[in-house]
């Protein structure tokens, strides 16, 4: 369990509505600082600049999908160690197993409950080494 509480979350997501809901949920209910990026191709730069505690990725995004983005992050020394949580509508256990094998720290299923999202993220955070 990390020594500090979960504070800064970086979120790559192309759907503006979901962005807004996640922002309100994490900022208002979770009292966290959130940085959201719509373009997955700009996500790496955004992470480097923002230095979050945790990165949240959508699976399906135009330009580059979540798993590819994760792989890219793992290849770069500056972004390799960030814990990554997927937020996805893909619900099968096969999909989940695939993400975990890529090194995802956790998975939040869409549709998610914005009331519970901060707690879900904190639970994953608490499970990290």
């Amino acid at each position, binding site marked *: 369990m990390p020594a500090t509480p979960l504070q800064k979350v970086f979120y790559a997501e192309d759907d503006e509505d979901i962005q807004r*809901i996640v922002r309100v*949920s994490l900022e208002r209910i979770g009292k966290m600082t959130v940085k959201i990026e719509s373009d997955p191709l700009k996500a790496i730069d955004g992470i480097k600049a923002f230095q979050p505690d945790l990165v949240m990725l959508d699976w399906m995004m135009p330009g580059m999908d979540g798993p590819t983005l994760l792989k890219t992050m793992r290849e770069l020394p500056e972004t390799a160690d960030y814990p990554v949580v997927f937020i996805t509508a893909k619900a099968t256990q*096969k999909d989940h197993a695939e993400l975990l094998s890529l090194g995802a720290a956790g998975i939040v299923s869409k*549709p998610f409950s914005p009331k519970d999202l901060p707690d879900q993220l904190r639970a994953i955070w608490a499970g990290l080494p």
Partner: protein
Amino acid sequence: MRASMAAHPITTTAPDQTRDRADRSRVLADQVELLYRQAPLGIAVTLVIGTILAFELYSSAKIGELVIFWTILMVVVCVAWTLLVVGYRYARNRDTNPESWLRRFAIGALAAGVTWGFAGAVFFPGHTDEQQVFLAFVLAGMAAGGLPLFSAVWWVYALYAIGVMLPFEVVLLTFGSRLFTELSFMIPIFFAINVSVAYRLNQVFVSGYRLRVSYGRLTEDYTELNQRLERQLIELEEVRRQVEASGRKLALFAERAPIAVLELDREGRIQEVNREAENLFGYPAGELVEKGASIKILVRPSYHAEFEEKWQGLLKTRESMAGLKIANPRRDGIEVVCEWTVTPLVNSDGSIISIIAQGRDITQQLEADRLKQEFTSTLSHELRTPLTSIIGSLQLVNSGVLGDLNTDQAELTEVAERNGQRLLDLINDILDIEKIESGKLTLFPEPMPMDELVGESVKLNQGFADRYEVKLATHGVRDIVVHADRKRLLQVMTNLISNAAKFSPSGGNVEIGMTEKDGRVKVSVADRGAGIPENFRNRIFGRFAQADSADTRAKGGTGLGLAICKRLIEMMDGSIGFDSRDGGGTVFWFELPVYKSHA
């Protein structure tokens, strides 16, 4: 067809012995008939010659009374014989029982012979030489005259001749004169010659009659044979008509059938096609059949090698192949996908006559399946994404973190959120049912302790139970391990618990229990609700099943939950059901095989 032929075999197998006996009996009957037929002549001759003799003897008789007695005897014998002949003529059994009629006739013949023999013995000694010569002449005449009358059966003649000759012979031997003694030596010779002639005549009669009987039999057989042949010809004609009719029917079936039918030879050359095959592939029949085109023109070239392999397999096994899905290029180059059934027509000696290929165009069906799948995935993503936003936004508004709403606003956003959730549940349930029914739902079974599962499901549904003011109580929960899909089993538990909570009176208990028996663990969820109406019980696990459509509005739910539960539990080798509870309410339960028990 074969069976009916066998019913009328051409060769008879009647036992020859029986037939021989019947033939012999018929020959005898014919012999007896001949005897009786000639009897009137014998009677007439006896009467005429007897009368002349009596007249001659009486004129010079020392004892006239004796002549009168003899005459009366002769007449009596003739009358008795006449009666016998008349009796025979009207007898019913003369063909079936010729032996007894022969016996009677033989007695008659003996009596007639004895009558003449009596005349010889009594009258010979006391008369003049001329009269003696006359008497000897008459007796010899009568003995010889009996030959044509009686020799149909030689021993009847022999009896008659003995009757005539024996008394006379005795008299001649005892008379004492040399001439008579010499005569007496000749009589046995005369007897022997006559009897042997009678015997030979008898043989001639018998063989003649046998011939007649055989000929009659032959004619009968021939007639029967003819009748049998005629019957068989009629049957054959009938069978031919049936075969022709069923051939026409089959041709009609193939011709009008909405499936393509092609007849192929061993090399795959097209022999015949029906109308649908022409329509489907765009080739006129002439182009396919007359040019001896191979079936391969209807197979995509890249598939030819695989096709050839299958074809050789078919020729080898001679077994029908069904469900072959093959893309078939049409004449215009467009491909249609057909599902083929290929059946070799095999002769009784095992050789292949031809091969029938029946193809059903499933292009549209495949397209429909694809569209359905596409629709399902659209439903999954395109409907769920906006709903996520709707429900998420409403949840945030209702949570109060964005500031308080007035009462009306709060009520309406709560209505919106609840109905959004219901819509999402419905979509999820429809997707589940669709996945289960199309066989696309994969389970991920793992060893799972049931106490953990029950604990988790109670925790998950606590909020829901609170809303209905219902308490969730567990009893008998133990760490029995099953092999099941965790997520799906939680889905089942959630369904049963939320149903029980919804239908419980407020303040009531929902009791979750566990028992183990015969290697199966049974989990039950009991409520004290109104129970399940009688008329709803048999369709409670059906799709869109709700006891009262008013309930849908009052209690929420999609009506798919139990249908999904049933299918999920059955996929996990379990069973699901419900019972009424004593004192009101219902127990829903499911059973799963125990994987490992710690009890």
